[in-house]
């Protein structure tokens, strides 16, 4: 870490990419929360839709994983 200005940019970039993970958590929570509020209104229809919920969670989560990947690449591969 000594005196290399390029490393500073690298670490700042990795930290900023880490923000993306947190923001995708908002998306995952949104999917799960909306599923739960729908499921409590109509519990009999809920069981058939859990697969859809997991697909939605997976799509929201993939974007967070992408930004995690960017952070990892910045830290260890650049």
């Amino acid at each position, binding site marked *: 870490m000594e005196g290399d200005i390029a490393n500073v940019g690298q670490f700042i970039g990795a930290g900023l990419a880490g923000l993306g993970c947190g923001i995708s958590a908002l998306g995952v929570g949104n999917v799960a929360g909306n599923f739960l509020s729908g499921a409590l209104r109509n519990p009999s229809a809920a069981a*058939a839709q859990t*697969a859809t919920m*997991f*697909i939605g*969670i*997976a*799509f929201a*989560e*993939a974007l967070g*994983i*992408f930004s*995690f*990947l960017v952070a*990892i690449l910045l830290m*260890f591969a650049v």
Partner: protein
Amino acid sequence: MGSSTDSGNGAGKFALIAALVVLVLAVLFTGPETPTLSIHPMDQFAVTPLFGDGDIAWYTPTNVTLWMLVAVVGVILLLVVGSRGRAVVPSRAQSVAELAYGFVHKMLEDVAGKEGLKFFPYVMTLFMFIVVANMVGLIPAAFTTTSHIAVTAVLALAVFLTVTIVGFVKNGAKFLELFWVSSAPLVLRPVLAFIEVISYFVRPVSHSIRLAGNLMAGHAVMKVFAGFAAALGVASFLPILAIVAMYALELLVAFIQAYVFTILTCVYLKDALHPSH
């Protein structure tokens, strides 16, 4: 379940607590003097040859191939040897095998329909390999094969090629209707077609990175906490407790990611079998 587990419960708790105490003491007395992160979180993903330390060619037995072999042997033990008895009242191994079979069968039938059941052996193989490889990777000091993009990319590319080939063989040129959203206004259709084509080709990328990224992230976090435990000295029981909680979460993630990978395979198969929107 059985009376044999009741008597083992107290002894099990005692053994767990004793193991924790030994672990804490070992960390306390063998930890480094200076508080540094001695455990690098990414070291656990290094691919090394099993014998010697030469170059790695495609045929070299490495720790990845070893643990993939362990996963395959685990699947065979569960599904072939475990359910060999074919008892009416199943044993534990047989009932786990039956549960897994029924779970994947129902998932595929719900998503892709009766027609999709032709692909049941493939989907079952994918699910069992991924779930067992994830679980085996959680054994301490084991290697998580599915945390490598090279492994998951092959699985995802195989799914992508299967879906594309099946789609064209089954529907011919009609498979391209997948990209031509007939329910949208005519002006929008070229734009939507462009987006659909891009999203179709991004599928194998996100399909593989989701699995690898989730497992890599979880294992890296556990190693980061292990580094805290090594550096903190007296207070190291706090990160160790956190590792226990993370481990429980990782068990859940290991299953859910295998489930997600499999159900996305089912969704893509459904697209190939019934391409019209």
